[in-house]
């Protein structure tokens, strides 16, 4: 039945839009409709759901399966309301307001139904709140409190029915707590188009499973953790490595260093009650030292290094393709900082792995340098260094365990902590981050640039790369081309962004790449075509277009991030998430960027010093290839047989 050219979505075609317009009359669209909710009159735009109408009118309707990022489901029945003239209760999350209607959101029937829904969910929800990772931040727990659940008339399981799936480096699953709201399924399909999880079985035997119920660690999962961010309860959570990190801190023989990525700093405050978008970068440095970390580094240092390495790689690819007419050069070049995206590429488009930049992610570059350059410089035994990375990401846990990430001779990064895990460590240590004094990062990697900071937002890697490449090629200051050096066309939350940037003139080849290209004449007047995609569903659009020879196949450089909004919407960030929260975090990141004195990666003095002292054969040289570059694994979609 299905047309092979149209994408297959698991969510019903009719329900892929939150606004379910049921009219063929164009007059109705955009019209205002009267609605009376609990006796309060309001005008709402035609076709909004009762839930949206109620929110506009300041009336709270409880939800569980609904999520602002996802298609409607209408399965939990928590949001049912009474609509005058309707025999049955209607789910507010799906029912559209198309003509004048009267709604009662808390009649006896409605309250009874909601209580029944909660009592039924609790009849199969196994687990005690105080030993749950989501204690204090659980939607089921809050609703049970709001609806005064004091007993379990339909029972409450004492013993777990399911074994937990802890096979993944990143995402853990506990079906005993699952309430079958299917947010995880919809996340994996609607936002990511990966489709790891599916409802299996019927009736009270429905479970959420991978294909053939394979352990998640062997499934086609990209570890992005977006399902974790949207799980209303503790059925999905990121692997917790805080015990191991505490053990390292407690061991006096260990030198424990931590690098912190920009995105967690824009979100950590949320775990301490601050509004989203309140950066706590420097307070957090103090907290980390008080918690016992020996050194606190800024991942932005290697973000800048990534730009130099990846930018040089791009220049080399373009030179080979355009000047030397080498047809074997893979273009467009893809970014490779997002480990979720990298695994997505390995699974779904393995034939395009040559397009991925061989540059490691900032986390892994830092890891390799800490146990080599840094250890040498300070005379430390690299075996005794425990290298921790604070990341907004669950996939970084998988990344640091990749077998190829041991170029220092040791596991380059020992532990990837999520924002949530570190927040938990701070709380355990009694460190209230927002009220601590500020302090700076440690040397020798101390100083960072604004370009490194914006890696945390979608478009940020592209903007950072463009700032550097344009200055290196033109010899002009970027500010003379873009106001304040802000490259607006690659910013923002549009799913796929495309921009063309013309090289207005060329300058002398800067020293750092002088041994690689003789001149820039071949770029004079050239138009650089770039694109940015975030969320792997958007990445899929771009990849399918490239496969079909569309406009993205003409691009030179494309930034891909696995998570919506980029790293700031990562699977290790505070829960909940929504477009508003992500926008606030992005604002924090861009304001931090504009506050930096140095905003361009190639001007980062620590980066320049590293090339001067350690990576002496320059970007993409022999030493940097050994430590800062990597290779990928064509995985495909076939899983090993169990």
């Amino acid at each position, binding site marked *: *039945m*299905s*047309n092979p050219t149209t994408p*297959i979505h*698991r969510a*019903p*075609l*009719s*329900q892929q839009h939150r606004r*379910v317009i*049921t009219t*063929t009359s164009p007059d109705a669209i955009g019209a205002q409709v009267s609605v009376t909710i609990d006796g309060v009159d309001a005008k709402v735009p035609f076709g909004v759901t009762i839930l949206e109408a109620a929110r506009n009118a300041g009336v709270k309707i409880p939800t569980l399966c609904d999520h602002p990022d996802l298609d*409607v489901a*209408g*399965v*939990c*029945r*928590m949001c*049912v309301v009474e609509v005058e003239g309707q*025999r*049955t*209760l209607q*789910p507010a999350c*799906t*029912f*559209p307001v*198309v003509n004048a209607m009267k709604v009662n959101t808390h009649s006896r*029937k409605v309250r*009874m*139904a909601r209580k*029944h*829904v909660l009592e*039924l*969910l609790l*009849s*199969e929800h196994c687990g005690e709140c105080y030993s749950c990772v989501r204690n204090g931040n659980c939607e089921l727990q809050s609703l049970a409190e709001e609806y005064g659940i004091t007993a379990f*008339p*339909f029972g409450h399981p004492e013993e777990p029915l399911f074994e937990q799936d802890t096979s993944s480096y990143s995402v853990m699953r506990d079906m005993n707590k699952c*309430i*079958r709201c299917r947010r995880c399924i919809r996340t994996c399909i609607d936002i990511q188009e990966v489709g790891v999880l*599916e*409802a299996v*079985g*019927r*009736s*009270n*035997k*429905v479970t959420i499973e991978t294909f053939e119920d394979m352990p998640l660690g062997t499934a086609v999962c990209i570890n992005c953790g977006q399902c974790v961010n949207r799980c209303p309860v503790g059925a999905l959570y990121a692997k917790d490595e805080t015990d191991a990190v505490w053990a390292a801190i407690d061991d006096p023989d260990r030198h424990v260093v931590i690098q912190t990525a920009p995105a967690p700093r824009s979100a950590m405050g949320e775990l301490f009650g601050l509004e989203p978008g309140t950066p706590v970068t420097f307070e957090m440095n103090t907290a980390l030292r008080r918690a016992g970390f020996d050194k606190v580094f800024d991942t932005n240092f290697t973000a800048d290094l990534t730009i130099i390495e990846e930018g040089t790689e791009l220049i080399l690819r373009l030179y080979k393709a355009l000047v030397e007419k080498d047809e074997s050069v893979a273009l467009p070049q893809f970014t490779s900082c997002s480990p979720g995206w990298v695994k997505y590429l390995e699974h779904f488009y393995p034939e395009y792995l040559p397009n991925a930049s061989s540059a490691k992610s900032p986390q892994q570059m830092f890891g390799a340098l800490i146990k080599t350059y840094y250890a040498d410089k300070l005379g430390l035994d690299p075996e005794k260094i425990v290298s921790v990375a604070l990341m907004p990401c669950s996939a970084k846990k998988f990344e640091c365990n990749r077998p190829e990430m041991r170029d220092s001779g040791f596991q380059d990064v020992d532990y990837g902590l999520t924002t949530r895990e570190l927040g938990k460590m701070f709380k355990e240590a009694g460190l209230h981050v927002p009220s601590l004094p500020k302090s700076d990062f440690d040397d020798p990697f101390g100083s960072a640039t604004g370009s490194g900071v914006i890696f945390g937002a979608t478009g940020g890697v592209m903007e950072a790369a463009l700032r550097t490449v344009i200055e290196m090629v033109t010899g002009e200051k970027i500010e003379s081309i873009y106001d304040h050096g802000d490259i607006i066309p690659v910013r923002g939350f549009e799913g796929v962004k495309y921009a063309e940037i013309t090289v207005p003139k060329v300058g002398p080849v800067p020293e750092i790449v002088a041994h690689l290209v003789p001149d820039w004449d071949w770029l004079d007047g050239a138009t650089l075509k770039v694109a940015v995609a975030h969320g792997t569903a958007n990445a899929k659009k771009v990849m399918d277009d490239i496969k079909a020879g569309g406009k993205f196949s003409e691009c030179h450089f494309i930034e891909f991030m696995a998570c919506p909004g980029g790293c700031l919407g990562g699977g290790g960030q505070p829960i909940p998430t929504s477009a508003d929260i992500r926008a606030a975090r992005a604002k924090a990141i861009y304001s931090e960027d504009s506050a930096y004195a140095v905003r361009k990666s190639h001007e980062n003095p620590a980066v320049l010093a590293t090339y001067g002292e350690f990576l002496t054969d320059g970007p993409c040289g022999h030493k940097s290839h050994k430590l800062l570059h990597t290779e990928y694994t064509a995985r495909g979609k076939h899983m090993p047989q169990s």
Partner: protein
Amino acid sequence: MPATIETQGNALTYETIEPEAGLKAALAMSRADLVDFVRDSDLKGRGGAGFPTGMKWGFCAAEKADQKYIICNADEGEPGTFKDRVILTRFADLVIEGMTIGGRAIGATLGIIYLRAEYTYLRPHLNEVIQKRRGQGLLGHDIMGVEGFDFDILVAMGAGAYVCGEETALIESLEGFRGEPRNRPPFPVVAGLLNNPTVVNNVETLASVAAIFAKGCDWFKTFGTDKSSGYKLFSISGDCEKPGVYEFPWGITVASLLEEVGGTGAKAVQIGGASGVCIPAKDFTRALAFEDVPTGGSVMVIGPDRDILDVAENFLDFFVEESCGQCTPCRLGNAQMLRAVKLLKTGECPPEFLASVKALGATMQVASKCGLGQTSPSAFLSILEGFDDEIANRAVSA
């Protein structure tokens, strides 16, 4: 075709309908008149929900779309219902004629018969009838010489899930997805198969359409009651002498029906299948009609020796098996109902639990996503109400 002995209790009106008379009459009318004609007949859906067919067609006809569909719901899965099987076996031409008229009325060029997996043996027969009609110019291009009237039919198979008889789950299943009901609105007449306007009609409804066009609305209305026009096929099973498929006009009382089928002395009848209601003997004066006891045609006679709780348990077992498991009330509620019946059988049901389950049943009826969960508690709740003495005073063997 395998030799299938179709049980049949009396003569069926469908035998008297002249082939293609309905289609001929329909093609003599304007397209808009077709919908009005069905509306005038007061035909209501024969699958069980009883939605006025003319209204459904009218909604779909009003939609502007490049592609529309008419689907024949032949997923006859309601326990105790087997009348569509008789119609498909003996009167497939009438059903297809009804679909063709429907296609003309709403502007669909493709019809799909969604056939129950258990009826796979009927597939060659249906394909044969379709092929024969194509040869006769009754399907395909320029049907019956009417220029531009194109309509064809394909047969698609169900995979055995009861819930796929629900029209939106049926559509999901046709699209290749897990058979689960959609949120409504939007209704299929607006956004159905592949997001196109779609009419889903029961087998018997479509056969009735052909009969109505052949013989007229007035003829049709001579059968039945004011509010339930026409005749209806009933699937009679259970503790009676002559089970089988019977045709009766709407409005027949339970008592007279039982007399016809040799079921007098029953202590109850279950009307409407597992999702229907249980009528105790004291209410046998009630009539089978949309205004009294509506039904898709399943009548199960429950003899005096049956344990009424066995009946309830049987139905609830069925729903615990067949709920799609999507919405909370149905996914988990049916199992609680079943637990209560089992406890009642052994005399161990605490009164407070029974009260909780009764209230839960009321919630399921209004808060479940589709008709399955909205009706699954009905049999049990009506048994609790109609047989409270028997349940309270039963001898407990456990």
